[in-house]
């Protein structure tokens, strides 16, 4: 199910994850093999999202994680792989699928502060021009930032450090009818 290269090289991936001091993260493109990803995409297309706007906080649509996808991401293969990278067994996580389109965003807000941990992000976004915004960003108050790429079938693991906060850049009008969809699992 998972790209064989990743399964065979967890040590290198773990080393790459740890070497980034400010924002420890790793981005794994083409994470699932083609057939598995097609199945996942099919399931995502069936999900119905709920729109919510709180101007000072966010504007986006979200949905609970479908059971079939939950099974894939919590399968022994996936769970073991993530455990090897983060060096910790996943005992508790919260997962939600987000759908951003034109005019959606999240803002940095003190009430969003989370405990240190890990974010597992899996991207389903098909065709996306980066000038449309929608990037997941991490900031830590020092002026430095981490901008995650937008590409389908990519898994990103980010260590949430004490002072780091996450937001999604405003999606501008140049993305009409385009959907930015990703899974966010918080550990």
């Amino acid at each position, binding site marked *: 199910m998972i790209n064989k290269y990743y399964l065979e090289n967890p040590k290198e991936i773990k080393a790459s994850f740890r070497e980034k001091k400010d924002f420890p993260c790793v981005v794994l493109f083409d994470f699932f093999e083609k057939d598995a990803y097609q199945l996942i995409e099919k399931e995502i297309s069936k999900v119905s999202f709920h729109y919510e706007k709180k*101007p000072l906080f966010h504007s986006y649509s979200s949905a609970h994680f479908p059971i079939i996808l939950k099974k894939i991401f919590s399968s022994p293969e996936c769970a073991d792989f993530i455990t090897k990278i983060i060096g910790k067994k996943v005992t508790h996580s919260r997962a939600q699928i987000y759908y951003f389109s034109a005019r959606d965003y999240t803002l940095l807000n003190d009430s969003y502060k989370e405990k240190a941990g890990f974010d597992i992000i899996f991207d389903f976004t098909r065709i996306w021009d980066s000038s449309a915004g929608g990037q997941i960003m991490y900031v830590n108050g020092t002026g430095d930032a981490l901008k995650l790429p937008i590409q389908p079938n990519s898994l990103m693991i980010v260590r949430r450090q004490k002072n780091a906060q996450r937001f999604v850049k405003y999606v501008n*009008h140049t993305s009409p009818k385009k959907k930015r969809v990703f899974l966010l699992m918080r550990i």
Partner: protein
Amino acid sequence: MLYLTTLEKKDGGALGLYDSQKSVATKIVKRIQPRRNSFVFFIVSKKSFHGVEEVLTDKKRVALSGWLYD
């Protein structure tokens, strides 16, 4: 705020004034399009919120803004 340029509705860039509940902005209740040489002022308080909507054109949105304190 003194607007130095004009943007039509289709150009975006409206000043949005929000309703609020318990000092939290809820929704835009008034939109004001920038119009050259027009002056807008409003009370700023813990329950007043405003924002500028996305500009959808290459035209420039130029405004002078300031605050008065008592």
